[in-house]
């Protein structure tokens, strides 16, 4: 009994620690970035020697930063002032016990700058009406399509999902072996279900979430992808799966509902390697997402997109916030960033370069810009996103072609369990 009493006392202390750090305008700051973000961060540190910024290059892997910060918080030292997260959903874990890492940015970042970000990144970063992160880049989805093949075969670019489904049926008959993209994992969950407004990762606060995979917005997705998975025109393999990469390299992808980075990071590199039979240069173009019947908007989904977070324990929040703002809004980032910037003025700079890129069959900039402003606000960042993708693969991808309704139901059950086990109250 004595031991139990001691343990209770010990944990009562650990629950109520963490006083706000004392601010010091001259304190040095430490930032954690992944390898891709390192050059910009180092350039900023070099340009601001008086701020004594230490740039640590860390892994961007799922969970890597979160667990490292949790350990630093536990040790009470080595906590970074600013971090970049490649898996933005982890902001929700950082906001929860035992970490409580992010600093609320309202009042520290000007309203003018905040309003420059796409509304989607701001709303995903907002919990209890406080903004806790700044968007680095966007993975808004569009309909990538092989313009040359479409013209050769006399196909119309589908404007609605009914047309998309009809196209899939026709393609399976006329050109078996070709496909309209993949619905595996995050490409299906975000590119299709989120874009349709299906509530599954829909946090109302950081402890409440809405899940209903049997709602009409989910069922209508199942009605399109089920038959197309069955006839093989929608692949169930990951975009970076070896088999699917072979299909890309052989020019078997006719269209693909995918993120803004899909062309630059999948189609381009996979078709320019030596030995590939198919050269994609001059073939792919971007079209707006197809519309669901009865909807006015070409809703888009979001696959990927990194964020920046400032520590509430930072001894120098002013310099830390300034660093995070510079990493997202400085015009040089717009020029050097490899993916679509979340900050509007930088996106314009970025899109100018895309408009002149001869690899595309047509200038994708208007479509990409509109899609960035049309990301469906239905879903946001949650602590069970990884589980959501895993359970989606175990239900909808595995059994959806045979019995979509049962698969959606099973997915909903697993999502609810995943949400509850990560501390959410679920509404339907």
């Amino acid at each position, binding site marked *: 009994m004595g031991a139990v009493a001691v343990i209770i006392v010990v944990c009562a202390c650990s629950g109520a620690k963490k006083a706000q750090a004392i601010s010091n305008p001259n304190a040095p700051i430490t930032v954690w970035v992944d390898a891709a973000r390192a050059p910009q961060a180092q350039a900023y540190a070099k340009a601001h020697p008086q701020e004594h910024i230490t740039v640590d290059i860390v892994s961007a892997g799922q969970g890597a930063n979160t667990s490292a910060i949790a350990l630093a918080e536990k040790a009470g030292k080595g906590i970074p002032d600013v971090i970049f997260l490649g898996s933005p959903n982890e902001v929700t874990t950082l906001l929860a016990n035992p970490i409580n890492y992010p600093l609320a940015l309202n009042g520290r970042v000007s309203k003018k700058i905040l309003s420059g970000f796409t509304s989607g990144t701001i709303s995903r970063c907002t919990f209890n009406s406080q903004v806790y992160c700044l968007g680095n880049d966007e993975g808004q989805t569009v309909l990538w399509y092989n313009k040359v093949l479409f013209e050769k075969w006399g196909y119309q670019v589908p404007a609605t999902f009914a047309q998309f489904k009809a196209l899939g049926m026709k393609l399976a008959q006329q050109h078996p072996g070709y496909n309209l993209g993949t619905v595996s994992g995050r490409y299906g969950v975000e590119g299709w279900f989120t874009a349709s407004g299906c509530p599954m990762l829909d946090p109302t606060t950081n*402890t409440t979430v809405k899940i209903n995979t049997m709602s009409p917005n989910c069922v209508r997705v199942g009605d399109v992808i089920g038959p197309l998975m069955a006839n093989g025109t929608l692949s169930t393999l990951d975009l970076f799966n070896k088999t699917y990469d072979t299909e890309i390299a052989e020019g078997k992808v006719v269209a693909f509902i995918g993120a803004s980075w899909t062309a630059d990071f999948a189609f381009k590199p996979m078709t320019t390697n030596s030995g590939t039979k198919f050269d994609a240069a001059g073939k792919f173009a971007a079209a707006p997402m197809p519309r669901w019947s009865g909807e006015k908007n070409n809703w888009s989904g979001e696959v990927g997109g990194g964020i920046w977070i400032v520590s509430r324990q930072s001894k120098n929040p002013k310099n830390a916030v300034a660093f995070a703002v510079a990493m997202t809004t400085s015009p040089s980032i717009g020029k050097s960033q490899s993916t679509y910037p979340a900050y509007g003025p930088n996106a314009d700079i970025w899109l100018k370069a895309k408009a002149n890129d001869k690899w595309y069959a047509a200038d994708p900039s208007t479509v990409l810009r509109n899609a960035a402003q049309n990301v469906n606000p239905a879903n946001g960042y949650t602590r069970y996103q990884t589980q959501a993708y895993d359970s989606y693969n175990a239900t909808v991808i595995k059994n959806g072609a045979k019995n979509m309704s049962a698969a959606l139901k099973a997915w909903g059950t697993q999502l609810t369990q995943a949400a509850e086990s990560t501390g959410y109250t679920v509404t339907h």
Partner: protein
Amino acid sequence: MESKNPLMVRRRGRRTIPWLFLSPYLVLLLAFGVAPAIYGLYESFIVSSVVGPSSFSLVKNFVAVLSDYRLPDAAKHVFLYLLFWLPIMIVAVFAIALAIDAKRTRFGAITRFVSYVPGAVTGSAAALLWLFMFSPQVSPIGGFLRLFVGKSDTFLSDNTLPIVLAVMGISAGAGGWIVVLHGALTAIPRDIVESASLEGANAWQTVWHIKLPHIRGYIAFILIVSTAQGFQVFVEPTVIAAGAPAQISQTWSINELVFSYATLNSNYGRASALAVLLLLVCLVLAIAILRKTRLYSTGAEG
């Protein structure tokens, strides 16, 4: 007063010397084995909530992990893996060791060496190697694999991974055990084997009644080490899952589920609770194997 007695001093010396020899191991065992286990046990009682203070509960974390919908699947995967891997490996290792022992020629030495070589490839590298072996597009046995794959053209999935890991485990682990068992077989006194054959025992009877009882302890050791290792399988499924994205669950094995609690959810209480349960299962199995095979029994008992 007593310590002046020379006999007592000698006796005490006799008691302390083994401890001196053991102490480096004991220090490491305490620092990296026992202490973390006790800390883990303590953590497993701390229930952290998303908001608000943590609390103490003897059961809450255990109930939460035991009712997690991912645990039955993870347990099934690990169980199937052990079911494929352990019996096949034990039989194969024993058979090859016997074959090498029966014909003590240069050929036997080469067989021993060749079977040991795959074990030199470390777990994560072996996982990558087998990832290619089980990808029909690049595998030398791709044509054979394609007999079992559908339209998706991928062999790897949650359900086929136990087979893949069993093949990996045997290729990587068998060699070392063959060397160990062969060593044990050569240690059996020749005269026992010879007198058995003089009494008219055939080869099979010699194996079953003479050789197997002599190396029973070694087989028990292989079983205990492999069972514990198998239950904690982590690196191989993690590496293969990273190489075959979205085909294999990130919480395929029990230990991966522990890892996911700790790194993705920062829920150390649940991670510890499941780790403690895993430790208990391995302990119970180890004790059962020890009793069944009488590993530590002395010669007097037979």
